[in-house]
Structure formats: C-alpha cells, structure tokens
C-alpha cells in the first residue's frame, strides 16, 4: 500500500501550490503515472479518496494519465512502445541493448483551483 504515501505526497504538493497561488479550493488534480512506476491507478484513486478528506481538496477528482513504457533499441535503431509494464529486451528483435525512455513517471501535472 505505498499508494497511500504517494497519495499523501501528491495532495501535499497540490495544496501547497493552490495556496501559493492564492486560491482556496482544489477542483481536480492531473497526474501522469508511468506503467512501470509500480503504482496501481485503482489503488492510488482509493488512497486519494481517503487522504483528501478534511483538506481543501476534499471534493477534488484525481485524473490519472497512464504513460506506456517506451524506449529505443540500439540494435534496430528504432523507437518502440509496448503495452507491458516491464520488458527486458527489444519487442522487435529481442536484443537486450535497449534504453527505456518513458514509463517510470510519477508526476503531478496540473491542478484546477477556485
């Protein structure tokens, strides 16, 4: 259940940014979660609903954009994107000389405030 720690951290960042910008209430929070980040979106949504109670984000929705795993194969000299959360070799040629370029994101992108 480390989604609970993640939910608390993202709530803290959102609340801080909302107050710094002089607003009183958070309507929604947009986050980017990589498929290989180890975070389950459903568990994060569940945890967020628990931690937001009593905060200025009490009524806020959490919008999760899942980022697929993508990378570059040194052998094929091509980029790839896959559905799996983890890969150890190029999906095209099977070579292990790959560089993973996305899929580990854990970012808060934008908050909607009033």
């Amino acid at each position, binding site marked *: 259940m480390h989604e609970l720690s993640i939910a608390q951290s993202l709530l803290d960042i959102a609340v801080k940014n909302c107050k710094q910008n002089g607003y009183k209430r958070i309507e929604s929070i947009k986050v980017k979660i990589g498929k290989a980040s*180890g975070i389950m979106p459903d568990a994060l949504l569940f945890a967020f609903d628990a931690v937001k109670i009593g905060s200025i984000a009490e009524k806020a929705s959490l919008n999760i954009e899942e980022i697929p795993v993508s990378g570059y194969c040194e052998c094929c000299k091509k980029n790839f994107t896959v559905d799996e959360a983890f890969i150890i070799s190029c999906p095209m040629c099977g070579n292990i000389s790959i560089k993973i370029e996305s899929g580990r994101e854990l970012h808060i992108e934008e908050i909607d*405030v*009033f």
Partner: protein
Amino acid sequence: MKVKVVSHILEANDRIAEENRRLFDKFGVYVINLMSAPGAGKTSLIENTIKEISGKIKIGVIEGDIAGSDDAKRIKSLNIPVVQINTGGACHLDANMIREVIDGFPLKGLDLLIIENVGNLVCPAEFRVGENIKVMLLSITEGDDKPLKYPLMFQESSALVLNKIDLLPYTNVNIEKIKKNSQALNPKLKIFEVSCRTGEGLNKWIKWLQSLIK
C-alpha cells in the same frame, strides 16, 4: 483556473533523502539500503557482515519493521549501535523516518550504516532514504521467477545477494535463470551467492563491501 505544477510526486521524500545523504557524507558514513522479502535473511546477512568486519570497519544499523524489536536486539547483542524503527503498518521506510532517528544516532566515527528496510519486494524500491547504494537479498527458496515478477527492485539495486544456497540440493530452483534475468534487467548488477547459515560465499560479499568503503 488551471495551475501548472509539473513536479515529481515524491519530491518531498527525495529532498529529505538528499538532506540525509549530506549529513551522512559530512560524517563520512557509507550507507546501504538493504531490501528483500520477509525472511530472506537480511538480519542474518547483517550479523554475518558485522562478525566478519566490525574489527576493521565501524558499523551502525537502522532496523525497519512494521512492529517489534527482535532484529534490533539481535544486532545490539553484537555491541553495534542500532536503532529500531517501527513503521506501524507502512510497507517501506521513507526518508523522513530515517531523518527522525539519525538525529540521536552516533554517526560520528562510523564507516558504514546499514539500513534494513521492511521486508517487501515492491515498495522499498520506490523510496530513497539517503543511501549511497541499494542492495537486495533474495533467498533461493523464493523461486527463480522473482526477477521478472518484481523487476523494479532488481533494477534499482547495485548488488544482489542470493542467500540460502546451502538449500539448493533440496529445491528445483534454477539459480542460473535468476542470475540471467536479473542481469538482463540490470546489466550492472553485482551478484553474490552466499549461505548465511554455513558462511559459504560471504568472503566475496565482504571483500566487495570493503572495496566500497575504503
């Protein structure tokens, strides 16, 4: 009104981890974050390491568990400074938990601090605590499918210690498969095969550890 934020969700944790790291650096303490599933032998590896090198290298230990202080008692009986963190349910240690205990910890004069994380193959890999390196332990009885089932921890670690190799004849585990898949996930991963019960293979681990500190 939309406000762009664009920050890493774990930035607060990472910031505290950086502060912890600066403090460790100031005292010249090398820090290992030791992770594994429950029962893989983390405390046994620490005990064996202490017995081998505490004459030459000053070691301190932080024990992380959900509850209880059995591990800390085991380390304390070896006359090593130790502090127990009880996470009270949390499945991993985070940077703030470490910050709270290092204030009163005798860092001065230490060469090596081993932080034994909560037994779990998933969450501890996500949270930096201020360590120099992460080391993971896998007991061979856990099965050869673990690298591909829990890839993140294998990717984040600098070394993999395969424990309980004395039990190999009694299992169907394919140790070469563990090594091959671990190194496919992380080509730089150093792998040690040990038995904390018989002492087999520990000399290579100890030698590597000493090379990091001195």
